[in-house]
């Protein structure tokens, strides 16, 4: 693999020297494009007090192509499926090279605060979210307590 672009080095330095509250991203030693991410569930959401593990990978053409991000911790959310894949516009068509690892992780945190059941990835969860809201929130809370420790 060719040497790491300046941009990735700078982003990594900034993530470590000036971390975002509630988010840590640590690169793997053997592959500096691969990050372990820990994300705090936002307060006021059913994911509060949970710590979620994610993996983040910067493809060869980053920042022209978006980073690939996936939840490793099981989570009950209409826009996140069983494999941890995330349905978020800025990770797909609305990616912009001016966005960064930091901003993308903040967007994911915001998605936890405001799920969008009208554009679902996990259809059953979305149905539950729309038709039986209280129960859905309850399940999300239970899953958070059980898995996101």
């Amino acid at each position, binding site marked *: 693999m060719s040497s790491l672009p*300046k941009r990735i080095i700078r982003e990594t330095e900034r993530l470590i020297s000036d971390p975002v509250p509630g988010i840590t991203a640590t690169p793997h030693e053997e592959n500096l494009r691969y990050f372990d991410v820990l994300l705090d569930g936002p307060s006021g959401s059913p994911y509060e007090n949970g710590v979620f593990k994610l993996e983040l990978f910067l493809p060869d053409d980053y920042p022209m192509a978006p980073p690939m991000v996936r939840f490793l911790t099981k989570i009950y959310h209409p826009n996140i499926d069983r494999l941890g894949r995330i349905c978020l516009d800025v990770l797909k068509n609305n990616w912009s090279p001016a966005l960064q690892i930091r901003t993308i992780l903040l967007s994911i945190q915001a998605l936890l605060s405001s799920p969008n059941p009208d554009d679902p990835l996990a259809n059953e969860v979305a149905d539950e979210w729309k038709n039986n809201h209280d129960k859905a929130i309850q399940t999300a809370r239970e899953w958070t307590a059980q898995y996101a420790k």
Partner: protein
Amino acid sequence: MGNVPGKESNGNNNGNGSMSTAAFTREFLGGDGNLNGQITGGLRYSSSRKGKNFEDPVVRQRRKEREIQKNKYRNKQIMNLVVKINENVDGGYLAPYDCYKYELDYETDIVRDLIINRELSPFFIPLQDFNENWTNDELINYILNNIKLHENIKPGDLEDNFEDPNEHRLHVSASSLKRKQIKIQKMKMKENAAELQNTENIKFLKDIKNKERDNDNNNDNDKYLQIPSNDLLIKLYKDSEECPICFLFYPKYLNITTCCSQPICSECFVQMKRLEPHFPHDEEDNTRDDEDKDPNSLISEVVKCPFCAISSFGITYTPPKDIRVGIYGKCLPGEYDSNDSNNSDNDDDDNDNESNEITELDMEDPFTKKKIPAVNNNSNNNNKEKKDKSPSIITIDQIRPDWEQKLLSARTKMARRSAAATAMHATSLLQGHSGHNHNTNQCPNNNNNNNNNFRSRGDSNRTSGSQLEAILIEEAVRLSLLDEEERKLREREKERRRK
């Protein structure tokens, strides 16, 4: 044998996958119209669609010529990504610092012209580090010890990671063989380009070192006129600016977005492109296969501004007034002297004298003889015209004009795929799978939806041979229309290039 109608569906459209409509109908409907026999005998059209029987010598000749043209184009595109010491404009160059494996696919001729005409910021050599508190000596010291003409190319960098899954088949298709051949040719071109780049890099570094040494010895420096003078380097890099996308430091003469006035270096700009053609997100329907959707609803969206996401994204470039060196310039980068107003663009009356001066200079210096004088004569007219104009807006579509063709071929490919799926379906139907009866009553009137209708399930009507025949003919007509459309567009494209 060839019973794989979807096999052309990998990410390559090099234009040779087109199925002739004649072949399609002949194979399907047979000479005697005995549809049943033909189809249950096996789907043979896919194996013989490029069969030699249908190809007359004229077509073959034309195809060969087209292949040669394409190869020439590929080679030109790759060679244009080589940064050359002599091809410089206002201290920057005509090719990017990092070639990204020579896979960059913007229209290199257009970008070169834009840079030469000072409508796009030249590809400056980026600095990895910069401190605004550096003194001029520290700055020069850092630059001279760190700049390279081009990022080093390591042997492994040229490999492309795309692997054709069809290569591993027992029976390799003709198009797959061709793709492999193109890949090998491309690899050779890339190796040539990399070799040339390495030679230029070495010369650049050597000249920088020698120039410094000769400077100390007070020798005359005419040998190194293409190497930027220290004055020019200081002038350029004194107030370097960070490109917000690649985080590298560039001279402050960057492109500026028209919508939100953000800087963006040319290197990042030429990498931006439209996404592959896709279906609109609102209508995305997970319950349907892509093959069931109408190919004409595929869209290609313009590149949005990376900073403010507005869809009318474009940039302008205002060239520095007081630096005018290199191609169409008033002197060479080695001659730039910050105290000499002759280097700058301030004084119009100077133009005539200037060009004389350069011609004289060329007599002495064989290095510059070839390039500069030829372009210099018409540059004055050019400059005068340009001067009154406000800077023109450059868009991504301008440097990548092929998006329309890409969209069209994506649509055609999609249509072919769904036609193949329809055909497959027809076969299984005639072979008499019970419980798979389909409603084809409303079929061939509606071009766009006939696959969908045809493939919808749950009606007890039995399909008759004649109905199927009608669908297949309809399908064939549609394909030939699409083919024709594509051909026309290609021709128009060629016409445009010729101009």
